[in-house]
Each structure stands twice: as structure tokens, then as C-alpha cells.
């Protein structure tokens, strides 16, 4: 599979992949590495990084920030991946139908997608989460509901172009049923761009989740990077590390995901020169 060779030949993609894997490992290994949970209070609040036994210092409640950052990764990755999966699911469903059948169905679905993009999506998300009462589930559902149009447009574009490709016409001439054509002929060829856009979406989902948590609309029982930053709005004036460290973690993770997305895009259609 020279696709893998092409993907890993790019330094940026390689860096992105390595960082992402590292973060996932940290998130998974957190309970083994750290004896106490993120909520355990280990000492006085707002101790600077490097204080005895505190690699990344303590936060406003005296909790070990290093542990918080590790567990925060779990929430961010969980929300990022699940909401993107839901969004991709909806997106493929609507995009494929619109792209494959065209005509009125396409018009209607596309007006619907466009409508969702006209609406200021973050304001809509705030309302959705507030009205469903802030929780992990409401965050995931909310983010999925505002990000599916992005995938739907990509899928529709792919289906529109692939539908008119001659190997699809050949399949119809051979007597294949629509469903079989969609799943065996079109979808496999449409997957690569979907995978590329999805990896970017995981990144933006993490950003959105942290924004919600920052505004206090995140799940109060969970410690996520966003809630750590949100909690530090006042502490920042006396303890710079409380907002800086979680913010850097978000940036590095999303950067890695974007590099992966870029790498996927370049590896999939080599025609796109550097």
C-alpha cells in the first residue's frame, strides 16, 4: 500500500501521528501512572510547577495539574471522537442521498444543510447544551448536530462526481441495485476524503468542547482541559500556569490532528502538489 508510504513520507504528518499516539497513550495509561485521580486534593492550591511532588503545579483546588491534564485528555479525545463519528454518520446519510439521487432530494437536503451553516453554529450549540442541561451526552450531541453539515457537503460532492463516473454507469448497466452500487462502488471511493475531513473535525470538536467547558456549559462532574482553563480565569492573575498548561495541551493535540488530516489529504490525491 504505497498510500502509507506517501502518508509517512511527510514530516508533518509523521510528527502529527506520533504526537497523537503519545497523547492517546497518556490518556489511557493515566490510571496506571498516577496513583491518585484528577480530583484528589494533594496540597495547598496554586503551587507553581516544580513544587515538591508537583510536576505541573497545583490548581485552584489544590489538585495535581499533571494528573488533571492526563485525565483531561480522556474527556477531550472522547468528546472529539464520538461527536465526529455521529456527525460523520449523519453527514454520510444525508450527503449520500443528496449526492446519489440528485434533483429535488438534493435541492431540499442542500437547502437544509445550508440553513444549518447560516445559523451561527456556536450560538445554536450553546442553546442546545444549556437546554439539555450541561453533560457529556449533551455536549457530544450538540457538537454532532452543528458539525454534520461539513461532512454532508464533502460526501455530497464526492457522490455527485463519482455518480457520473463511468464505472458507476457500468455497474448500473450490469444490473446492480442502487444500494449495492452505493456501498460497493461509490462509498469505498468516497471514504478517503471523508477520513481526511473527519480527522480535522475531531480537532475542531475538541476546540468546541473546550469552549463550552470554558463558558461553564461543560459537564461539571468531568475535568476537561476547557474546564481547567475556565476555572483559571481569576486564578490566572496570581498563577499563570493554571490557564497556560491546559491551553497548550489542547493546541498540541489539535495541531497533531490537523497535521494528520493534511497528511491524509496529500497522500490521497497526490496531484495536489506541496
Amino acid at each position, binding site marked *: 500500500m504505497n498510500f502509507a508510504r506517501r502518508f509517512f513520507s511527510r514530516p508533518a504528518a509523521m510528527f502529527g501521528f506520533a504526537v497523537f499516539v503519545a497523547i492517546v497513550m497518556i490518556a489511557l495509561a493515566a490510571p496506571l501512572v498516577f496513583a491518585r485521580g484528577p480530583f484528589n486534593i494533594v496540597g495547598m492550591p496554586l503551587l507553581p510547577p516544580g513544587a515538591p511532588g508537583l510536576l505541573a503545579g497545583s490548581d485552584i483546588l489544590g489538585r495535581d495539574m499533571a494528573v488533571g491534564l492526563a485525565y483531561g485528555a480522556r474527556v477531550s479525545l472522547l468528546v472529539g471522537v464520538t461527536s465526529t463519528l455521529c456527525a460523520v454518520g449523519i453527514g454520510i446519510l444525508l450527503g449520500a442521498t443528496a449526492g446519489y439521487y440528485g434533483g429535488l432530494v438534493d435541492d431540499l437536503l442542500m437547502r437544509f444543510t445550508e440553513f444549518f451553516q447560516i445559523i*451561527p453554529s456556536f450560538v445554536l450549540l*450553546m442553546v442546545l447544551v444549556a437546554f439539555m442541561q450541561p453533560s457529556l451526552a449533551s455536549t457530544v450531541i450538540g457538537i454532532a448536530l452543528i458539525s454534520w453539515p461539513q461532512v454532508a457537503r464533502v460526501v455530497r460532492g464526492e457522490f455527485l462526481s463519482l455518480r457520473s463516473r463511468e464505472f458507476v454507469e457500468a455497474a448500473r448497466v450490469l444490473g446492480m441495485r442502487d444500494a449495492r452500487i452505493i456501498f460497493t462502488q461509490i462509498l469505498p471511493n468516497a471514504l478517503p476524503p471523508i477520513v481526511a475531513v473527519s480527522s480535522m473535525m475531531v480537532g475542531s470538536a475538541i476546540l468546541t468542547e473546550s469552549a463550552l467547558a470554558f463558558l461553564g456549559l461543560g459537564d461539571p462532574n468531568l475535568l476537561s482541559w476547557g474546564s481547567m482553563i475556565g476555572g483559571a480565569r481569576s486564578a490566572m492573575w496570581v498563577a499563570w500556569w493554571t490557564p497556560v498548561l491546559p491551553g497548550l495541551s489542547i493546541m498540541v493535540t489539535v495541531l497533531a490532528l490537523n497535521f494528520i488530516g493534511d497528511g491524509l489529504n496529500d497522500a490521497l490525491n497526490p496531484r495536489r502538489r506541496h
Partner: protein
Amino acid sequence: MKLRYIAARLVKTVLVAIAVVVLSFFLIRLAPGDAATVMAGQSGYADEAFMKDLRAEYGLDQPLPAQFWKYAVTVAQGDLGTSYVRRQKVTTIILERLPNTLLLDAFALLVAAAGGIWLGSMAARRPGSAGDSAVTVLSMLFYAVPQFWLGMMMVLVFAVWLAWLPPFGIETMGSDYTGLARVGDIAQHIILPGTTLALYFLASYARLTRTAMIEVADQDFVKTARAKGISERQVARRHILRNALIPLVTYAGLQASILVGGSVLVENVFSWPGIGTLAYEAVTSRDNPVLLGIFIVTALLVCLFNLITDIAYSIADPRVELGK
């Protein structure tokens, strides 16, 4: 002709506005708790009687469709109802704070567009060079940075440590400056929030300009232009940039709704008294009419912005006669 194209887009804007009103009306009505509980909660003491007259006063006890019809009519007259929490007309509250958001967004868009296009065309001129990869990495960075966190870092550096710039609000509190002094004061206050909002879009503009210009540079008519013997600079300006502008204009349209989202966050970090902070306050205090009003106003603004970009697009690209 262009008129029919513009008329078609106007009809689309109206349809979207109606759809927005319908969606937001039902969406918010389904939220648990309503105005009465809000006001009761806030006045610290609420007995059943007090809650009941409040519901009557705000027509919350009528059946849902009746409420909606009444609401749709009033909205059509530009009256977005009264705020449950502030007892003021929603329209006035929004119009009071809308200029601040528009000022901030305009500043951000200007900085982003100018900076982005300049950086993007620089990078496109020498693809693969150090400058080019620097621009790419920089724009990747600003893509990955959470806007609110970037804002906080600006506050941390420029207000907490260096104390050069006032971090919060639109003007010095209680200063009642007038004329030029006031403009200077606001200018000082807009720098931090404006740059924070701009950096995200600057990154996307740079990236888009770079890709668009590189793609256009491969086209045949650029080769024709060179075959005419005109200078490289003229080829870049008259042919490459001129064609690369088209995707930029369409992208500007898409940005509008992201911009609103961005300003909610940035305004919140910097307490910029725009409709962004108003939206947040309305969500937390369950002030449905204000939230609904902001929804409609922002959606209309985005539509208007898209209309303008569509028209600009049809001017920039003569191939567009009837709207797609």
C-alpha cells in the same frame, strides 16, 4: 441579469429568516423552566400567586401555536418582545450592543483579510521556500489554538504582566470621555480582543490565498500571459491574484457564522459589551426572548453578509449570470 440574481438571493434570505424564527421558537420553548421561574428565582421570594400573574403577563399560559403566531407577527414589525430578566424591549437591548460587535468584527475581518492575503501571496510566490513553510506552520498553529485561550494569553501577557493595554470592556469605566479622547480610549480597548478574533481568520485567509494562488498559477492562461512577455509582477497581480480572489470572496461568506461564534467567546474573555456577551448572559439566565432575538439578528446579519459576498462574487467572476 444581475437584478434577478439579487432578487433570488433576497427571497432566499427571507425564507431563511422565517426558518430561523420557526426553529428557534420551538427550540427555546422546549427548554425546561420559563420566564416566571426565572423572575421568581431572582426576586428571592416567589409564591404561587406571583408566579401565576407573571405567566399571564407574558402570555406564557396560552397554547403554543397561539404564542408562536402572536410572536411571528410582532417579530415582523421588528419588535422582538421584551426581555424577561431586564423588563426592556429586546430590540433596544440588541441594537444597543450590536454596534460594539460589528465594530469588533469589522476590525478583526479587516486585519485578517489584509494580513492574510499579504502573507498568502508572499508564500505563494516562492512555494516550498522557508517563508512559505513558515506561513503554513503559522496558519496551522492559529488553526489549532482555542480562541478563548488565545485571548486569555493576550490578557496574561499584555495586562497582567506588562500592563500595557486595558484588557476588559470597550472604554475606561466611568471616564465619560468625548470626541477624539473617547475614540482613542476605544481604540486602545479594541486592540486585544480585535487581534485575538483576527488571528484565527488571518490564518485561514493566508492558507486559502496561498492554495488558491498556487492552483491558479498552474492554469494555462497564466502561461499565455507569460507568453505575452509581460512582467512577472503584472502576471501575479493582473492574472493570478485577480482569479485567486474569487474563492476568497466565497470563503468570506462562509466565515460570517463562524465569526459570530468566535465573537461570543472573545467578547466573553474581554467583557466586550457586544451581543456575544449578551448571548451568554441570556443562555445562563434563561432569557428566551433575548436569546431568540440574538438568534434572528445574527442569522439575518449572516444572510446579509452572504448576500453581499454573493454579489461581490458575481462581480468578481463574470461567468456567473444566474445564481447557482
